[in-house]
C-alpha cells in the first residue's frame, strides 16, 4: 500500500514536471529537437535539471542494498550495446520528432491533448503490443 502511495506521488510529480517544463507542448519539443533549423536549447535545461537530483540519489544508493521501503535497488545492467538498442532508439526518435510526444508526456497530457493525444496513445500501445514480434524478426535477420 505504501509502495503504491509513493508510486502515485512519483507519477504525480513526474507529470507536473513534464507539464511545467514544456515537454507536453509538441511545438516546443519539436523546436528543441530542431538542431538543424531554428534550435531552441531549452531541452538541455530540462534534461540537465532532471539528471541532477538523480545523479545525487544514484550516488547515495551505491553501497546500499535496499531502498527505504525495502525493495532491492536495481542492479547495473550489463553494458551491452545490441542492435535492438540502436534500432529501437532510432525508431523512437523518428516518432518523437514527427509529432513531438514521447511516452511520459503522451500519458501526462491525455486529459488535455484532445483527439490527437488519444489517437497517439492508442497507437503507442499498439506499437508496444507488436514490439515483441518485431524484435523476433530483427533478431532472425541479425542472425543471418
Amino acid at each position: 500500500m505504501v509502495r503504491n502511495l509513493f508510486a502515485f506521488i512519483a507519477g504525480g510529480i513526474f507529470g507536473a514536471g513534464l507539464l511545467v517544463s514544456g515537454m507536453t507542448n509538441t511545438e516546443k519539443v519539436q523546436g528543441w529537437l530542431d538542431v538543424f533549423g531554428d534550435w531552441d536549447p531549452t531541452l538541455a535545461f530540462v534534461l540537465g535539471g532532471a539528471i541532477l537530483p538523480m545523479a545525487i540519489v544514484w550516488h547515495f544508493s551505491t553501497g546500499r542494498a535496499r531502498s527505504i521501503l525495502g525493495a532491492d535497488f536495481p542492479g547495473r545492467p550489463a553494458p551491452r550495446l545490441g542492435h535492438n538498442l540502436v534500432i529501437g532508439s532510432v525508431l523512437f526518435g523518428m516518432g518523437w520528432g514527427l509529432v513531438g510526444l514521447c511516452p511520459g508526456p503522451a500519458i501526462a497530457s491525455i486529459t488535455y491533448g484532445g483527439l490527437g493525444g488519444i489517437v497517439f496513445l492508442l497507437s503507442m500501445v499498439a506499437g508496444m503490443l507488436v514490439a515483441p514480434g518485431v524484435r523476433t524478426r530483427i533478431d532472425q535477420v541479425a542472425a543471418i
Partner: protein
Amino acid sequence: MIETDWIWGFVGGLMIGGAAAIYLLFNGRIMGASGIIGGLVDRSGLDTGWERGSFLAGLVLVPGAMALMFFPGISTNITGNMAAIVAAGLLVGIGTRLANGCTSGHGVCGISRFSLRGMVATVFYLLAGGISVVLFKHLLGVV
C-alpha cells in the same frame, strides 16, 4: 526561445528528476515511462501491476488537475495530421520497447548513473529526432 522558457524547463526538469529520485529511493525502481506502461500492455509486469497503475494514475491526474486549475485552454499543439500521429505512435511504441527505454529511463535515469546503454540510446534518439523534424517538418511539410 522566450526568455523564461529555460527557467521553466530547468524547474520542470528538477521535478522530473525529483520524481525519479523518489521512485528509486523509496520503491527501488527505475522511473521509465515506456517500461512502466509497457509492462502492463504486454502483461510482462503484471506482478507489479498495482505499483505501475498507481504511478500512471498520478501521472494522468496531477497534470490534469493542474491544467484545469492553472492553465485553462492549455493545448499540446499536436498536429492535425492523423496519419502522422498514428505512424509516430507506432514508432514510439515499437522503438521504446525494442530499446528497453525512452527519454525518462535511458535519458534521465541512465545518463545520471553514467550508463553506457543510456548514453548511446539518448544520442541515437536525439539524432533521429533532429533528422525527423528536418525531414517531416521542413522538407516534406507533413506536420
